[in-house]
């Protein structure tokens, strides 16, 4: 292994830039003549707009222009995935105007934009806008929404976006009816607010000389924004629309989507004839960044007398919020129900999913997107079933694991897993977690008046999103390939243009390692360029842990084309047959001779082609490749969490977290560990701390860090992370993806550990987030029941 190739823990090349404050984020960019936009937002969750009077605001100091929905009649912000109801009819797809058209549907909905010389002037002027609202009753609770009455969209009956199913309900019901044991739980997957470190921002401008629009934006996928905004909202052709997503400070999914503010500043730029900058403040982030999760589910697991799973039945209600965000509809369906087999051989599975509109912020994919919801309910119901039947937690899992020799494995819920070894990750996690020593630690806790518990989660997820043919057949309105362009410069350095987008993942390092390994170059001869539609040919962006498994494969494909072309050049220069040219360690050699050319010499020759044969060899050394995966990739593993509960206060201390994950081949172990750590922190955040709460009027009660609990360093112990490797069977690198595993695997392990700790008191369930109050109440409830 080289020190800079595959498998090396290279320190991140981005670190100097980011750790010394030298990144260039959207809000760092200022353009000549730039104006500032402030968005006036709805204070109401649901109201009719009778009139908007902007006259006083327009006369305020520094105001350049004010626009309302009446001015901005453009296309609807589109939804990228069409789901069909059980009866085959398409989902309800109400419009989502960038500026409200006569009605507001959630607190924070855009009502008007004020553009002024300074942000303070824009904000002051916005206070002078008089909006006459007639407040309407708000609907926040999904069950109440389904009962009809208050409609978020007048033409969507019972607020039902779709009623979708997967699997044969009759067959599953039959298996459940005849089963030895059925475990049933009602589960809430709590709504989360993403909280990327960098708030969203956008700068729109228009060049009258060229007719080109430019949008700088905090996006995980600039080309997707170009497509969605250009083609669907503003009707700007791609060749006249440039999107730049420069350094982006975290996304976790929330920066995938096309947001209203991007369209507003781009649309308004030619109208005011100057660039327009908008940057969210943190309060706006809370109410306008798409939220995550928010499912309520009933699950039944049927087992035979030995503990073998016979059937799983799931009915889920998923909150869409007030409008359909870009990928909202696929999260509770194809990224969720298709994972309900988990790591088990459950033969029949049924999932029914109702997606529901409410007067809340739109909900969309958030780190894991559907798979955390699936793994949570599976691992909670398996844990409960084991307790009810008196089977040890590891044993019930081993009994039902898909065996390592059963791959490729076709699940009953559409997916075919290509590789995995769930016993291996369970075994290494149990060893690293020192499960054998748990009894002694529990006794030591009890001696101090504390309750200790241990919880398991064995999970699989589907990422490397996604084979276009598969997702297309399921309703995706996009292909999910990736592109890469490899440009070899005349002196032998390499610039890679990738459609993947790095917003904290360390791509510039991992991808450079692929180049170093493949072309034999030192890292300082490699530049990774991303995020600008005028530089990168095309791209579908970064989400669903796809950048390496899809974007990296596109790079490998393009680099192999470079090697092929280089061999032609070397064969010509060295006067040998192309078939005799070998490439190794950055050198092209003629087999069996001492004739050789370095990679740099080939590059220079490509651009100084003094004697190239015109008809068979083109000058230059640059190749483009598109890669469309054959299948999803399936990382999996085992997380074991140990907690200590203080029964006097309900405080849960996470004492040990052990993650053994199979993410396929590891390119940079340090970056993989870092991604795992971040995912675990978010998973523990969901399990213990984070919960988005609205009151009945649709006002967000957790709209700041005073009330929304983010995980902090002192909430977390040191993590034990390790990797077991089974290679992905359908990509050349054997990679699977690591961006989301921590957040997918850990929440059920935390909750199962708490239930384990409290099981002696008779507690069987605790919902997320397991706050001190909730745990204390559960203990009080169990004590009262015992009396």
């Amino acid at each position, binding site marked *: 292994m080289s020190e800079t190739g595959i498998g090396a823990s290279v320190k991140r090349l981005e670190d100097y830039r980011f750790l010394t404050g030298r990144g260039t984020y959207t809000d760092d960019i200022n353009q000549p003549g730039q104006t500032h936009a402030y968005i006036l937002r709805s204070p109401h969750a649901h109201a009719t707009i009778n009139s908007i009077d902007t006259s006083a605001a327009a006369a305020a100091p520094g105001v350049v222009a004010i626009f309302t929905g009446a001015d901005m009649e453009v296309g609807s912000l589109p939804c990228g995935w069409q789901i069909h109801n059980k009866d085959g009819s398409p989902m309800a797809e109400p419009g989502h105007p960038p500026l409200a058209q006569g009605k507001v549907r959630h607190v924070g909905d855009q009502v008007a934009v004020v553009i002024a010389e300074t942000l*303070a002037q824009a*904000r*002051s002027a916005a206070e002078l806008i008089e909006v006459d609202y007639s407040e309407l009753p708000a609907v926040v609770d999904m069950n109440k929404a389904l009962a009809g009455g208050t409609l978020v969209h007048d033409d969507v009956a019972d607020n039902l976006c779709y009623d979708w199913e997967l699997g044969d309900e009759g067959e599953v019901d039959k298996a459940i009816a005849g089963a030895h044991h059925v475990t049933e739980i009602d589960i809430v997957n709590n709504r989360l607010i993403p909280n990327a470190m960098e708030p969203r921002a956008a700068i729109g401008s228009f060049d009258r000389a060229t007719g080109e629009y430019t949008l700088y934006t905090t996006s995980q996928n600039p080309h997707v924004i170009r497509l969605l905004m250009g083609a669907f909202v503003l009707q700007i052709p791609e060749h006249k629309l440039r999107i730049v997503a420069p350094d982006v400070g975290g996304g976790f999914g929330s920066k995938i989507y096309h947001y209203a503010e991007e369209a507003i500043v781009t649309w308004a730029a030619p109208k005011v004839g100057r660039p327009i900058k908008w940057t969210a403040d943190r*309060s706006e982030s809370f109410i306008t960044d798409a939220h995550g999760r928010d499912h309520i589910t009933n699950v039944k697991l049927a087992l035979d007398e030995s503990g073998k799973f016979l059937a799983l039945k799931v009915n889920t209600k998923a909150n869409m919020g007030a409008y359909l965000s870009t990928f909202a509809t696929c999260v509770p369906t194809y990224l969720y129900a298709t994972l309900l087999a988990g790591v088990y051989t459950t033969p029949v599975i049924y999932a029914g999913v109702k997606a529901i509109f409410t007067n809340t912020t739109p909900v969309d994919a958030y780190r894991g997107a559907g798979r955390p919801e699936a793994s949570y309910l599976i691992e909670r119901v398996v844990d409960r079933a084991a307790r009810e039947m008196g089977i040890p937690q590891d044993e019930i899992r081993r009994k039902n694991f898909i065996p390592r020799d059963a791959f490729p494995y076709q699940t009953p819920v559409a997916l075919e897993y290509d590789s995995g070894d769930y016993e291996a990750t369970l075994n290494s996690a149990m060893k690293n977690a020192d499960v054998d020593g748990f009894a002694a630690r529990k006794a030591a806790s009890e001696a101090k008046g504390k309750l200790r518990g241990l919880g398991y989660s064995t999970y699989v997820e589907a990422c490397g999103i996604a084979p276009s043919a598969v997702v297309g057949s399921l309703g995706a309105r996009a292909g999910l390939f990736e592109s890469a362009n490899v440009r070899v410069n005349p002196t032998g350095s390499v610039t890679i243009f990738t459609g993947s987008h790095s917003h904290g993942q360390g791509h510039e390092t991992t991808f450079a390692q692929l180049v170093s390994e493949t072309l034999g170059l030192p890292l300082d001869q490699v530049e990774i360029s991303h995020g600008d539609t005028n530089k990168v040919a095309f791209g579908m962006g970064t989400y669903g842990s796809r950048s390496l498994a899809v974007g990296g494969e596109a790079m490998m494909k393009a680099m192999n084309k470079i090697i092929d072309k280089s061999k032609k050049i070397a064969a010509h220069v060295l006067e040998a047959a192309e078939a005799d040219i070998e490439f190794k360690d950055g050198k092209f050699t003629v087999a069996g001779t001492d004739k050789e050319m370095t990679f740099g010499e080939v590059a220079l020759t490509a651009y100084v082609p003094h004697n190239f044969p015109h008809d068979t060899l083109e000058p230059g050394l640059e190749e483009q490749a598109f890669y469309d995966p054959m299948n999803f990739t399936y990382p999996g593993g085992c997380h074991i969490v140990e907690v200590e509960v203080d029964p*006097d*206060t*309900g405080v849960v201390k996470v004492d040990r977290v052990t993650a053994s994950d199979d993410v396929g081949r590891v390119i940079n172990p340090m970056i993989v560990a870092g991604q795992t750590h971040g995912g675990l922190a978010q998973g523990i955040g969901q399990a213990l*701390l984070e919960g988005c*709460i609205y009151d009945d009027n649709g006002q967000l*009660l*957790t709209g700041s*860090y*005073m*009330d*929304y*609990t*983010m995980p902090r360093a002192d909430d977390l112990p040191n993590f034990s992370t390790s990797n077991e490797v089974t290679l992905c069977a359908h990509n050349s690198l054997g990679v699977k993806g690591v961006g989301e595993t921590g957040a997918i695997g850990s929440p059920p392990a935390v909750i199962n550990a708490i239930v384990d700790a409290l099981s002696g008191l008779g507690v069987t369930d605790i919902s997320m987030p397991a*706050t*001190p*109050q909730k745990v*204390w*109440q559960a203990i009080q409830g169990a004590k009262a029941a015992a009396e």
Partner: protein
Amino acid sequence: MYDFNYHKPGSLADAASAIAGAEDGKLVAGGMTLIPTMKQRLAAPSDVVDLGGIGDLVGITVGGGTVTIGAMTTHGAVAASADVKGAIPALAELADNIGDPQVRNRGTIGGSIANNDPAADYPAALVALGATVVTNKRELSAEDFFTGLFDTALDEDEIISSIKFPVPEKAAYVKFANPASRYAMVGVFVAKGSDGVRVAVTGAGDDGVFRVTEMESALAGNFSPDAVSGISVSPDGLNSDIHASAEYRAHLISVMAKRAVAAAG
């Protein structure tokens, strides 16, 4: 933030006349509450009088069984003070657990008590220790000073100059932090001094800091955790929010009181 007139007087007298002369003036000490509130446009004072230029308001002295802390002394300075650590270690520890390092290096004791946030830590210390608040006009007992939620006995043009803490025989403060904000959700300060035992609670009461006299009587006879473990506090008059119901807060008062007595030794 809206425009305002900024004043930075060099003396307490100048500060008093500046605030008296302002149409709708606000004193700013560390600014840990006022500045964010102004940035969010929730406060719009016509004038801001910055007390940061008055050197007399900063400093800690110990003598005659009293610790005197200048109103503009930061939490960080109180936490680091060898004098405070020696005389009232519980007070230094309380200061060391307010907010985060940035807040502790800007926030001041005078600013904190003048704001009387019901979830602030210092009010419990002042009431339990029987402290005296010294202003440019008079001296007030802590219990007379704190009059309710975000409310004190201070006149519009009255400025705190220092706080005098009698040195107790033993004392301890234990708080249960709000999981999100890390302010006190329940903070209990227990002190045993020359005129008896006092138990003051912050974070829990819907009217700010309050004393638990039943615990004080029990501890006067037997200063041990067991003395308070059987005493439950009524949830009536306690805050209830998404983080803690009044019942849970009431329960936590007993638990924190017990732990504070144990910590006081």
